[in-house]
């Protein structure tokens, strides 16, 4: 067991990390907003952690605080991401559908080019030697794991709260929600900020995990990968991003025996999953459960 964890630790932690990033897209989607901005906030959060962890200015802090500096990095990353999300979100969330998606892609790209050129972010090379929180890769499950559990609890409670209902009402029909007393802009921005803060914190946790940080962390490819996680996992329940993120992150590893052709198969999986599982894995599992339940006569109500 121990060997298994040591050998596959990196993969398992990556699965949890990607599931968290998928969740960061899920909150805006809860209000029907397709935002692809997560990689930008993820990269930003990572830079915050990498900079606090490496530059001279913070050296006294690091020495006196010890490991406490890490939670502070997460906090700083969350707050900075949240503020930037507020600034970007208020104008951008007036856009709908594909227009919002394109605006957020532009945001990610602009941020990437800026990070590629600033001195503080290490330019094209990035930042190396980000201090480690743990010695083994596997141990990072103790940062990402609790965050995932926390976010699942958060999502579960959110779903049946007043704010969560407002989110879903906006997703179903923004105009009707408006006429029922819900301020759409306010809640769309709120959902966007929640997603951004989550991505920022995940970034801050990932910089020590990956040891190095550069502009390749926040790219368009990542935007689409996260979107694929959510859509293939299922965008209508919190289990969707969890399943999608974890499984798709593991897919290249699962396909490793196929060697060079594995990424081709990876692409085919995306095509077939979107064609044959329109409600995502979570939706397909839900349907399966309903069918099985019905055939045993356990399931009452419904149509």
């Amino acid at each position, binding site marked *: 067991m121990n060997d298994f964890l040591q050998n596959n630790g990196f993969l398992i932690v990556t699965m949890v990390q990607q599931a968290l990033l998928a969740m960061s897209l899920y909150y805006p989607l809860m209000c029907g907003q397709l935002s692809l901005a997560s990689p930008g906030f993820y990269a930003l959060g990572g830079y915050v952690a990498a900079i606090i962890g490496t530059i001279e200015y913070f050296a006294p802090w690091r020495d006196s605080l010890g490991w406490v500096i890490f939670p502070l990095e997460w906090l700083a990353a969350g707050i900075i991401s949240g503020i930037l999300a507020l600034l970007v979100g208020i104008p951008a969330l007036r856009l709908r559908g594909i227009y919002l998606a394109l605006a957020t892609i532009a945001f990610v790209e602009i941020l990437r080019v800026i990070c590629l050129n600033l001195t503080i972010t290490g330019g094209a090379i990035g930042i190396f030697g980000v201090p480690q929180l743990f010695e083994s890769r596997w141990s990072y499950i103790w940062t990402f794991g609790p965050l995932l559990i926390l976010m699942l609890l958060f999502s579960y409670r*959110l779903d049946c709260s*007043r704010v969560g209902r407002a989110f879903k*009402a906006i997703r*179903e029909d923004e105009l009707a929600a408006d006429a029922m*007393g819900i301020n759409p802009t306010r809640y769309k921005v709120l959902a966007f900020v929640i997603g951004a803060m989550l991505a920022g914190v995940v970034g801050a946790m990932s910089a020590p995990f990956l040891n190095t940080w550069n502009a390749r962390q926040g790219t368009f490819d990542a935007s689409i990968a996260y979107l694929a996680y959510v859509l293939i996992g299922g965008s209508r329940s919190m289990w969707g991003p969890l399943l999608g993120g974890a499984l798709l992150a593991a897919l290249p590893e699962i396909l490793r025996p196929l060697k060079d052709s594995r990424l081709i198969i990876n692409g085919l999986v995306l095509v077939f999953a979107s064609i044959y599982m329109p409600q995502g894995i979570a939706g397909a599992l839900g349907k399966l459960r309903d069918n099985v339940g019905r055939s045993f006569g356990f399931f009452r109500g419904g149509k």
Partner: protein
Amino acid sequence: MTVLLEAHQLSRYFGGLKAVNNVSFQVNDGEIFGLIGPNGAGKTTLFNLMTGLTPVSGGTLHYRGERLTGLPPYRIAGMGIGRTFQNIRLFKGLSALENVKVSQHVTTKSGLWGGVFCTPASRAEEKRVDEKAWELLHLIGLADRATELAANFSYGDQRRLEIGRALALEPQVLLLDEPAAGMNAAEKRGLTAFVREIRKEFKLTILLIEHHVPLVMNLCDRIAVLNFGELIAVGNPADVQKDPAVIEAYLGAE
């Protein structure tokens, strides 16, 4: 009798089309006020102006002396003006229960943290929301199908659910846009009784757009007639029915 709503020279132009043109009227507290007119007369546009969904081109609208024009829809809803839609705009992917819970938004206030951390205040509030939602579902007769998705309901049930959803706002004014559309004769009679019942129970003032003239004549205290965006008559049903301008508008439209 106090004046509750006052429209003063309300106008809305779409390009060259005068959808609503210089319309002025008053609605008294507690009355059922009918809005009739041929297709395209501007009735729904008038509702959209009153609820802020369409910005006005000119004129003002006051509610209890407060100006509504220029306010966003959610603020107007928050002041106690609920509505239904001609083409039914339920939250189709949500259950009937959730639909009725959603619009209790304005009467509740728990925020993100309260909801997520389940603070006592928010838990108590959630309990009230739940009770109220069930009460309303019983009232509209859909309590036994509370967990079904709104999309699965029949046309008539969807219209009733929309009224239930609007009532959850605890409105003082209810705007019903063709509530009887698509209903059969028995359902229409039921609706008449239902509208009277909710007016009494919730002390509502009701504005009603309807094509079915007998229903309007039977139900409404006063009626306004719109034609090509202009108000051509206001008064009690018997008088309006005899008004030559109204007769011409209807016969001309045939």
